[in-house]
């Protein structure tokens, strides 16, 4: 009986381990190629770790490529998008959760509708709209487009978090002497921090890895975000895998840092409402 139980535990742990290895293997490969010197990349065949590791690719990417510019651009675009979308989605999500107003049904339907179109279809019209406004080849243009595409989903996300907060709380605050907005800011928002963190994280990563629009709307290295920048490592005659992977590893850092920062709230958010509290 006891042996059986131990076996089950071991099998369980092994299954988890296998899954983690499977999920993280591409990341590992990214790192492995990034530290493999060029002369060993093709000569050593498939090995889990090169016989000689070096940081030369990182050095090159940071000092001799346009990567720092891409990185900065991405940080600006993703950060602004995440913040703007989260603010807008908090307000609209709260409205959808708490207020009854005319046209609410149609508004929600319309927001859902925007999520149904393949983005590729919209690239040309959006380019046509942004071009006379001078918003092509500009980071602001990207932020506007990303914000527009992320607000509907983020709104639904925030709405579900607000729905989980009892209405009694803001009613109590309003009787205690708060206006609806003060009740929202002082009582409801602090309780929605997990939701805000989840929305921030979701939008940030979505914008961080977006390729299609930045490829179409941005020309030239000065305004390119990092996913577009990665393509510049693909030249006419060769692909510089080592440098590309090194850039990829570097690009992972802010995303990881960001999630590390919000992870406390994120875990709360994903499990919120699971237990009566």
């Amino acid at each position, binding site marked *: 009986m006891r042996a059986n139980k131990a076996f089950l535990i071991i099998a369980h742990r092994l299954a988890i381990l296998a899954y983690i290895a499977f999920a993280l293997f591409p990341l590992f490969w990214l790192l492995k190629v990034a530290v493999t010197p060029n002369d060993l990349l093709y000569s050593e065949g498939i090995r889990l770790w090169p016989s000689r590791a070096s940081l030369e690719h990182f050095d090159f990417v940071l000092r001799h490529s346009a990567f720092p510019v891409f990185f900065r651009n991405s940080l600006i675009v993703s950060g602004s998008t995440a913040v703007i979308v989260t603010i807008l989605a908090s307000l609209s999500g709260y409205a959808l959760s708490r207020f009854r107003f005319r046209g609410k049904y149609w508004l929600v339907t319309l927001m859902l509708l925007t999520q149904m179109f393949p983005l590729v279809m919209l690239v040309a019209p959006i380019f046509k709209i942004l071009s006379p406004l001078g918003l092509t080849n500009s980071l602001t243009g990207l932020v506007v487009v990303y914000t527009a595409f992320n607000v509907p989903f983020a709104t639904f996300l925030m709405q579900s978090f607000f729905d989980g907060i009892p209405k*009694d*709380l803001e*009613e*109590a605050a*309003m*009787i*205690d002497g*708060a206006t609806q907005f003060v009740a929202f800011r002082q009582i409801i928002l602090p*309780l929605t921090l997990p939701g805000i963190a989840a929305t921030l994280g979701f939008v940030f990563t979505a914008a961080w890895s977006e390729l299609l629009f930045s490829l179409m709307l941005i020309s030239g290295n000065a305004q390119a975000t990092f996913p577009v920048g990665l393509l510049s490592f693909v030249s006419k005659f060769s692909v510089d895998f080592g440098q590309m992977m090194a850039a990829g590893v570097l690009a992972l850092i802010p995303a990881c840092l960001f999630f590390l920062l919000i992870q406390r709230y994120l875990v709360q958010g994903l499990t919120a409402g699971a237990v009566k509290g």
Partner: protein
Amino acid sequence: MASIDIANIKKSYGTHPVLHDVDLKISDGEFVVLVGPSGCGKSTLLRMIAGLESVTGGEIRIAGRRVNDLAPKDRDIAMVFQSYALYPHMSVAKNMSYSLRLRKTAKDRIATVVAGAAAKLGLDPLLERRPRALSGGQRQRVAMGRAIVRQPKAFLFDEPLSNLDARLREQMRAEIKKLHKDLGATSIYVTHDQIEAMTLADRIVAMNGGVVQQVGSPLDLYDRPANLFVAGFIGSPGMNFFEGNYQAGEVQRFEMEDGNSIPLDAPPLSNNARVTLGIRPEHVVLAGHGPETLLATVDLVEPTGFGIILHLSLGGASFKAFTNDRSFLTASGTIPVRFPAHYLHFFDAEGRRV
């Protein structure tokens, strides 16, 4: 403290009316309980007084001032919610002082008031805790504390004890009553529990279907219910009802449907009028002989410890009797019962008291 006047209040959601012309004057310092089954409109009425629901028609005045269109924060009332509605991210002290902080009360004044309220409610050792680290009864106390620190014009209670277990509910009921005695604050209390209504109220407002059925002191409603609804709702176990006819004549009688009849003193009824007779279980006399004695069959004996509830039947009609006499624990077969005339209630075909 203040009086509250409610005049011709109406409320409807779309075309669906939930309150019909409610009129109520609550005087300064009075403890009024709104009681009725769920969906009778009592909570809606309370929330309208608080400003959490809009007013469809009529007028609400607090201390003489019309508040129909005033935001909740400007009405100077405090409310205790069924769910307690404590702010989860604030400590007990912060919960209690929130309203004062919103009003920019001086810090030392806040500290004094909160300490006073905490002492009154036995919350001193808990002031730094978060609500989630409190038991149900403690949360309830914090909710009360939050209400009393402000010294508002009136207290509103929305079924504040419904989430507590029976023993705690009894204890908190007594504390609320004591608190009201100390503070003398105008209070409106909503409950579906008629025991809470009976024990707490200066005056009870019994409601059903969005209409006020009767307003009066607890014993008024108990002894002289205005209609069948109030008679059935107030009291536990509830009042017994028998359908039948009133027979005038030399000896006035109430004739039940199964042919049993009891003699009675004359209520102002016309001959052969269809009436409902009501009698409370504790008023049924379980003994007797002579013409007014009936033979009832014992269906079930329920000992409650405090007394015994007998489930009896008379012809086709079943009814209950309450007694403290333990010899009835073994009652079976048929026993004599008597309905003393001065304990009888009569209701006409529309359910109104006659």
